[in-house]
């Protein structure tokens, strides 16, 4: 049921070397640097995104994800969702407007999986980068690297998936698009959406709370995924696996790492979701094919390499 959560809005990642990170996310992936702040954070966005930023890089000595933010439809909805989260049992922290430059007030909470999330209603509308809002050209000609289209979703590892499902579905209005069930019928992976996408956020069961698996960015075509793979080789960037296809969501993908070891994905295609769709189920015994549809076996890194 719709609760007013609209879409993924931003992710803040910790990086060991901010200059190397900016080269990775801007020069290689094609994000655009939009701002910096006095905490040393760098704000970036993909060119089709209408708000000021979607990726924030923060220098730190331990890589990983600080939080992921979702945009809600308006401020009244934000207030209501804050109450709903507290009624459910979440502590909610008020983050004042402009703590992130150009972003309105945010409500931060910790999911049972251990990850921090935020809701916000307002962010500076800068429009798509490099094209006009009137008679726009197809794309800006001066994009770099992979020319990432948008920040799309995150995959996170943690425990208490059932409680996390309850929070996202019953409080925030997400839908279960795909799942992985073990032999006992317990859900060990949940792909959740608030849109027509197959996932806006995904969780995989893991004994340690709050781990980051990857932040994913959308590309237009399989050819663009192959071109991304070429750029990964040209720049000697640390590759994980691909180009290949996922069974889950059927997206075409490549995984690689930023210079601090945070995993990134660029992908294209994949299935779509409407609220009358029943969840797609993959069985844990077929997890290899569910994750890597062509190889049909997991690489060791998929389950063990996290930040």
């Amino acid at each position, binding site marked *: 049921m719709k609760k007013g959560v609209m879409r993924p809005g931003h992710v803040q990642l910790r990086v*060991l*070397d901010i200059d190397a990170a900016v080269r990775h996310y801007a020069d290689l992936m094609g994000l655009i640097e939009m701002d910096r702040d006095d905490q040393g954070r760098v704000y970036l966005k993909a060119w089709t995104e209408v708000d000021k930023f979607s990726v924030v890089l923060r220098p730190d*000595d*331990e*890589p*990983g994800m600080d939080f992921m933010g979702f945009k809600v439809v308006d401020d009244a909805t934000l207030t209501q969702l804050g109450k709903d989260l507290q009624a459910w049992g979440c502590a909610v922290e008020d983050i004042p407007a402009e703590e992130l430059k150009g972003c309105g007030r945010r409500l931060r909470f910790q999911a049972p999986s251990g990850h921090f999330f935020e809701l916000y209603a307002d962010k500076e509308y800068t429009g798509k980068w490099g094209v006009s809002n009137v008679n726009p050209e197809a794309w800006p000609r001066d994009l770099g690297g992979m020319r990432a289209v948008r920040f799309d979703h995150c995959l996170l590892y943690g425990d208490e998936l059932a409680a996390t499902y309850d929070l996202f579905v019953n409080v925030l209005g997400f839908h279960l698009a795909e799942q992985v069930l073990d032999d006992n019928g317990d859900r060990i992976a949940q792909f959740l959406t608030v849109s027509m996408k197959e996932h806006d956020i995904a969780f995989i069961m893991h004994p340690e709370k709050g781990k980051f698996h990857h932040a994913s960015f959308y590309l237009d075509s399989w050819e663009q995924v192959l071109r991304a793979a070429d750029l990964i080789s040209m720049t000697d960037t*640390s590759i*994980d696996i691909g180009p290949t296809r996922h069974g889950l969501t059927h997206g075409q993908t490549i995984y690689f*790492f*930023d*210079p*601090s*070891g*945070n*995993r990134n994905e660029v992908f294209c295609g994949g299935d779509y979701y409407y609220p009358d769709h029943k969840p797609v189920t993959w069985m844990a015994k077929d997890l290899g094919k569910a994750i890597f549809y062509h190889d049909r076996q997991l690489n*060791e*890194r998929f389950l*063990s*390499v*996290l*930040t």
Partner: protein
Amino acid sequence: MTDTFEMIELVKGLHFSCSREQSLLKAMELAGKRCIPVGCRGGGCGLCKVQVVSGEFSCGPMSKKHVDEQSRRCGQVLACRVYPLTDLTFEYRPAAELASTQQQV
């Protein structure tokens, strides 16, 4: 002074060479040897943690979650961030094995 050094992994007895510009892990991958698991290659995931037994090296940035100051001083470092200054000997043991060893101590 030579630019290429001899790396010796003591548990499996594998040898490979590594230049001062290469990380220990990268040199192992290029040599086609398998004695350290390869994770993120960026100092973040901690999978390639080794114990350097002898030799001098410099280090790139590593997650403090996996390598704190004491570990670093003891030569327990991430192979993806180790750049040799001399020949090195080192050991890789899986994390589970390390934990049981520490319990015995």
